[in-house]
């Protein structure tokens, strides 16, 4: 039997660089297609709406779209974490509404300073998540049931907090500024370029490290494609957002990256780092993949569970704060309606497996883009909510079917 010899490069032909096309074909055969179907779907959606209405691919609309999805996407990041564990959290919508109400009431009615009110709103989420996680981990009650109970209870709490008025109109500039201010063009480009360079540096360092360890590496062409694509998307996005969005040319120009989008992207980057680079992230995948294995490895499974539910509810609260800030208000409908379902659908459409242990934080962005684009496009075409829901439902079904069939293909090929 051949032994693994880490320091000789020549005797492991299997690590030869793989060409672009064969690697794509192989990934397809293994059912390891990554975000490709979502990207294709997104491109098709954009194409269809652009043909139907030429306002779809305009700077104004696209910027609106990203602001619209920032809240849903942030909640969806938390859902991704919970799904990675193989669990589900149905209370995120209610929690986001309650957090926004707590913030609104404290700021407007109690006159708390903005920072404290925001922190209190987010802390509400953290507290709720910890409680629900503890219940799920310690009492072995299925997360479905605990979060369903939460959905009802926190909905009630929201109504209780808002009291008889039912609506709190936000007036504090800081709170409103969370979602409604803009980063200047110069700062936007500087941030964008720094992000691209950092991304390229991380990828290249990773490649080097793999080569040094004689591990399989992707081809330089593929690497260049990845960096180039991300750079292009970033520059084009920032460029789009730098164009004046104010239809009134005479008035002051409206340009720059909306702060809600910056917050959402920051959340994505932070949680991508946490899930992929830290022990904690690795343990989430381990617990979601095989609880017994995680337990045997000495991982504090209950601790991971509680932490993940805590993070999920915290992110839901953040999403609620973002939404309230964008809409200048917190009311009885906050976090209601399709908030919960869209957040879960976004995570799943983005490619996070419902069966645990598989998925990426970035799928929250992709899924949110898909759902947001459908909603936005249909609004442009003045279609009814009825059709919007039906189309979104169909897309969700397709995405879950893809996940299930990928899973069965993996099992069939022993992968």
């Amino acid at each position: 039997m051949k032994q693994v010899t880490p320091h000789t490069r020549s005797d492991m032909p299997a690590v030869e660089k793989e060409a672009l096309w064969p690697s794509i074909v192989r990934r397809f055969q293994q059912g390891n297609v990554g975000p490709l179907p979502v990207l294709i779907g997104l491109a098709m959606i954009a194409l269809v709406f652009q043909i139907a209405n030429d306002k779809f691919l305009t700077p104004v609309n696209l910027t609106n779209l990203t602001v619209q999805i920032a809240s849903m996407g942030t909640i969806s990041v938390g859902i991704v974490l919970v799904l990675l564990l193989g669990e589900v959290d149905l209370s995120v919508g209610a929690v986001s509404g309650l957090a926004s109400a707590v913030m609104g009431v404290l700021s407007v009615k109690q006159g708390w300073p903005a920072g404290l009110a925001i922190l209190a709103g987010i802390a509400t989420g953290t507290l709720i998540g910890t409680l629900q996680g503890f219940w799920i981990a310690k009492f072995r009650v299925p997360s479905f049931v605990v979060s369903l109970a939460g959905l009802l209870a926190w909905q009630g709490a929201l109504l209780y907090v808002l009291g008889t008025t039912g609506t709190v109109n936000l007036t504090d500039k800081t709170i409103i500024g969370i979602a409604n201010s803009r980063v200047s063009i110069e700062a936007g480009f500087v941030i964008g370029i720094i992000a691209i360079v950092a991304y390229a540096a991380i990828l290249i360092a990773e490649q080097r490290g793999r080569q040094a360890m004689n591990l399989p590496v992707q081809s330089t062409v593929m690497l260049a494609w990845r960096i180039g694509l991300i750079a292009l998307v970033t520059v084009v996005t920032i460029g789009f957002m730098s164009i004046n969005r104010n239809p009134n040319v005479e008035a002051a120009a409206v340009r720059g990256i909306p702060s809600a989008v910056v917050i959402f992207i920051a959340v994505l980057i932070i949680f991508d780092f946490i899930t992929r680079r830290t022990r904690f992230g690795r343990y989430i995948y381990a617990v979601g993949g095989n609880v017994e294995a995680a337990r045997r490895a000495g991982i504090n499974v209950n601790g991971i569970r509680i932490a993940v539910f805590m993070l999920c509810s915290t992110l839901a609260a953040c999403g609620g704060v973002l939404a309230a800030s964008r809409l200048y208000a917190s009311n009885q409908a906050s976090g209601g309606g399709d908030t919960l379902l869209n957040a879960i659908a976004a995570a799943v459409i983005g490619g996070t497996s419902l069966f645990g242990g598989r998925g990426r934080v970035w799928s929250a962005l992709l899924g949110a883009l898909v759902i947001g684009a459908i909603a936005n496009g249909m609004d442009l075409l003045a279609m009814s909510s009825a059709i919007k829901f039906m189309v979104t439902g169909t897309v969700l079904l397709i995405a879950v079917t893809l996940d299930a069939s990928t899973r069965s293909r993996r099992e069939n090929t022993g992968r």
Partner: protein
Amino acid sequence: MESLVRCLNVSKHFGTLPVLQDLSFDLRSGEVVGLTGLSGAGKSVLVRMFAGLEAPNSGAISLDDTPVTSSGQVHALGIAVIHQHPALVEHLDVSETIFLGHEVGGLRRLSWLNTPNQRAMDNSASHILAQLGVSVPSLRERVGNLSGEDRQMLAIAQVLARSPRLVVVDEPTTLLRYEYQQTLLELIRTWQSQGVAVLFSSQNLDHLFAVTDRILVLRHGRLVLAVDTDATSRESVVSAQIGASDQQHLTPMIWALDSYHRAREQAETLRQQRRVLEHDLAAQDTLNRQLIAQLAEQVTSLDRANTALQDAQRRLLSEREQERKALARELHDQVIQDLVSLNYAIDELRADIADPEDSHDTIIELRDSIRGLVTAVRDICGVLRPPTIDSLGVGAAIQSFSSEWSSRSGIAVSLEIEESLGRLPDAIEISIFRMIQEGLSNVRKHAQASAVQISLKSTSQRSLLLTIADNGRGLTDDTNLAALAAAGHYGLLGISERVALVKGRFRLHQQTRGGVMLEVEIPHARVEDDEDEFF
């Protein structure tokens, strides 16, 4: 030495079913203790308690007086467990799996948020795998893509990645092939020499007696035997396992247990080999079947061709004989009669001539030469077709031919022909005659003999034996028919072909007193005359 591990009054029950009852034992550092018992004796539950995955209902397991309470604290205590069936995370890669829960690098304080040093882990992972003799496609290969055996080896590698003070091994060998089993036993010895305590749970007596210092036997959750390995025997271990002391019951039991394990090991190896073979065979089988079919077809067609060829040759030979016969008859009936009548005519002519004196001598000469011609033609006829063979049979033909040959060649011929031979089928008679012709001609050409002995007799009612023996110089040692034929000598080859055509056997003997004996055995249908006599 102080005890490292103390298991004190441990009891466990599932519902009302007692699994472990009041179990107590100690383990010292550098000691290998075997744990055995039949299936269901409680071994695995005990192992899971060591892993912190089950809690005892009463009593405690402690390491350096710290009781084991949860799986999270087990590794910190320095306990590592190799379970019977590995549990691994499918989506993690090899390197991540080996170091799961024990990632290298980063700050201890904020251990959850630190980022493990992947390169350091890859390095030591590949060293550990090399040490175990395990080969994986890559350290980034997902565990879900590996075989059951490789996964079990990864579970062992997880233990090597830590530095435990106590290793609990729960019968992992059922999934492993022989080499890996030996690797594991070697590993246990290494741990022993490094002062690591090992609790080795196994039903395999070979393994237990190979590495352990002490053996504990569980039966129905109770510790029934705890002895030094050197002071016990397989019989007593097995008797403790099954709770019998009767030697007569024991022997077949130990035999059964021992051979059961050996058989299971072999079965495992065999199963793997069979899988490979089946795979190969499936591919080979179709090819083989095609080849065999083709071969059979070729053989059949060859047989058919051969038969056809023999038929053709037989027909050719008999047709030639017919032709010769016809030719001889023609010569006899036509040419000779003409010549005779010509002779008479000349005689008459001589009497009628007026002046006989002038032409007398000429006519005499003429007549004499015609007589000479007649004799010559008669000789030719005799050679072409022995005249006696058709009328008097092969015996007479041989007699007349051999006496004529003898006087011609000056070699003495002695004949021994069975009187009761009677008439034989036409083809056989002519074949025998031709063989003798050919044989004698060979003797004259090559043997330098002074005497030839021919015998023809029946060995049974259905076969004849013909021998032709000379007293000549014999054959060279390397004589063979193919070489002779290649050199242009067809005599012996012709004989052998004739023998083959009548389905007989042909042999050449080098005689001890010099010369060659040719022996031909010919089967034949019974001759009709004989049959007549028979009735």
